[in-house]
């Protein structure tokens, strides 16, 4: 067994309590330990990514119990990709937090941050549906703390909404898992894939109910219409860097849909057929529409970034809902792109709001000191999210559109009209915020709240460099993702990796 598979979960789980217990009053030590573990995680994730690329899926049996009796972690290409994406994003966001001084505005930022990373990694690596629920709760409870970090009336009230919405989601997920267990007698995903294929027809209706309930929960996580209401208020009120980290939290929902529905409920299953694809596809199209209209009509920059996140989830799910390898590969490319681009936009919005004093997009324009750098970064992030050339958003959208040639009329028109609305919305916001609002720097720099924040800009530039790299190396990346998607759709290797040891025990 490759013991490195469990380290992305264990490492933050060890360091975070250490930070809470031993260095709660020392911000410098917290920063050193937080950043050090993020750097180690990036190295580790790189190693796992390499290991997953050259090997078939590998299972890690906790306590050495054979599946399906024990809990398994499974490292395949998709899981390794998500873990690597999380590790890179976490490091960048943490650099930004240290550079902008957000972690000094409340206690325990770094500990909560590491617990969040632990939950994310666990959710990506687990091969067990109930364990998925547990890791969802770990990442959610850490996100509740991060979301209200820094306090304030609106942030707390938005936090209560966010927690309530997610608690209802968790309850639904438990109902779904209980149904799955009652029908199939297993919660191990690989075992579930085997059991669902040979289900007696009498149980098919119950299984469909369980599958749809589970999809509702993942749709809550992924902010798919009509379950997107929590997202704008939460992301707009969360601290900027936390919202940037949350860019990967919506992707957890997308990951869970890809994982569970390609593995356990593929479209050729007799009991469920194309039910889930039929439900997801229209919801995804409406999500694009809602997101792009929201980008056009948003009242603040942060809300605009939140609606851009919703639109990108719609785009992602249009491709996921096709449930065939080419579209899944396009979806994964767009997933990586939209995580980096969305996070960059949230960080830039935080930088703007910090200098400008507000992110409002209505009323008189607020003059603020700027050098053109912020405006250029905003332009680059807007170009990436709206999906115009030259950045990776264009390639991502092109791949999705190319994969969905069959529904050209409907899908293409919604996607292209949505992109047009997003360009309009971002152009309106950019001209309101950055044009004709130049103020000269005051003579005394004494009221500078944060001091030099080169580290914060470095973090934003790192995300931009990631987007540029994703554009330049689009060829090798898509080739790698094609193999990944192929592996997801012929499930044999995954099932064998988990279930092969059954006979030995």
């Amino acid at each position, binding site marked *: 067994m490759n013991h490195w598979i469990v380290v992305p979960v264990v490492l933050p789980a060890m360091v975070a309590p250490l930070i809470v217990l031993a260095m709660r009053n020392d911000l410098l030590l917290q920063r050193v330990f937080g950043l050090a573990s993020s750097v180690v995680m990036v190295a580790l994730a790189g190693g796992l990514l390499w290991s997953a690329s050259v090997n078939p899926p590998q299972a890690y049996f906790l306590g050495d119990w054979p599946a399906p009796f024990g809990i398994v972690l499974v490292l395949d290409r998709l899981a390794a990709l998500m873990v690597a994406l999380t590790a890179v994003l976490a490091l960048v966001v943490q650099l930004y937090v240290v550079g902008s001084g957000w972690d000094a505005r409340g206690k325990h930022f770094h500990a909560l941050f590491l617990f969040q990373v632990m939950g994310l990694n666990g959710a990506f690596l687990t091969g067990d549906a109930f364990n998925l629920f547990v890791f969802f709760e770990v990442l959610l409870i850490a996100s509740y703390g991060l979301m209200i970090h820094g306090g304030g009336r609106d942030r707390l009230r938005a936090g209560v909404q966010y927690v309530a919405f997610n608690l209802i989601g*968790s*309850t639904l997920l438990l109902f779904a898992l209980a149904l799955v267990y*009652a029908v199939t007698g297993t919660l191990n995903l690989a075992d579930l894939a085997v059991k669902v294929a040979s289900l007696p027809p009498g149980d098919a209706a119950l299984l469909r109910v369980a599958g749809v309930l589970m999809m509702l929960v993942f749709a809550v996580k992924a902010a798919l219409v009509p379950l997107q209401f929590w997202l704008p*208020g939460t992301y707009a009120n969360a601290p900027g860097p936390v919202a940037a980290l949350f860019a990967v939290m919506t992707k957890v929902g997308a990951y869970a849909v890809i994982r569970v529905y390609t593995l356990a409920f593929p479209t050729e299953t007799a009991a469920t057929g194309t039910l889930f694809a039929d439900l997801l596809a229209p919801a995804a199209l409406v999500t694009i529409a809602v997101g792009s209209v929201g980008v056009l009509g948003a*009242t603040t920059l942060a809300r605009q970034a939140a609606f851009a996140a919703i639109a990108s989830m719609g785009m992602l799910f249009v491709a996921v809902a096709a449930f065939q390898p080419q579209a899944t590969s396009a979806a994964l490319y767009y997933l990586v792109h939209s995580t980096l681009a969305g996070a960059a936009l949230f960080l830039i919005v935080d930088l703007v709001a910090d200098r400008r004093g507000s992110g409002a997009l209505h009323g008189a324009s607020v003059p603020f000191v700027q050098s053109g750098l912020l405006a250029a970064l905003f332009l680059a992030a807007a170009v990436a999210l709206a999906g115009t050339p030259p950045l990776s958003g264009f390639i991502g959208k092109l791949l999705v559109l190319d994969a969905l040639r069959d529904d050209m009329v409907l899908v293409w028109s919604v996607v292209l009209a949505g992109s047009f609305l997003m360009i309009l919305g971002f152009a309106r916001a950019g001209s309101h915020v950055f044009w004709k609002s130049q103020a000269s720097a005051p003579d005394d720099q004494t009221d500078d709240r944060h001091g030099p924040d080169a580290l914060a800009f470095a973090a934003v530039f790192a995300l931009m460099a990631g987007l540029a790299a994703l554009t330049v190396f689009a060829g090798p990346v898509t080739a790698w993702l094609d193999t990944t998607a192929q592996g997801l759709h012929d499930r044999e290797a995954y099932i064998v990796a988990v279930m092969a040891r059954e006979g030995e025990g």
Partner: protein
Amino acid sequence: MEVLIASAIGMMTASGIYLLLRLRTFPMIVGLSLLSYAVNVFLFASGRLTVGMAPIIDKAAAGYADPLPQALVLTAIVISFGMTAVIVMMALGAYLHSGDDRVDMNDSSVGDER
């Protein structure tokens, strides 16, 4: 027994959802607790209802009670307990900051505070 358990789950779910829709923090928290009780009983019932059976597979035994849902219920209870504590604290904080315990917010001021 089946009727009793099914109607208990149904009534707790219905009252929980009704309380959730009240849009005040205290009824909402009570509603969430009721929902989590309902789901705990539901999880328990997913291993089939048995009376007086041991949770151990034995060739001589006539049948057995499924122990796995009991473990799942324990996990779910612990998690929902922790989550309830978190939301109570956050709701208290929100109430003390704003002097209002409504859950819904108006959009005009949202996202402008730092």
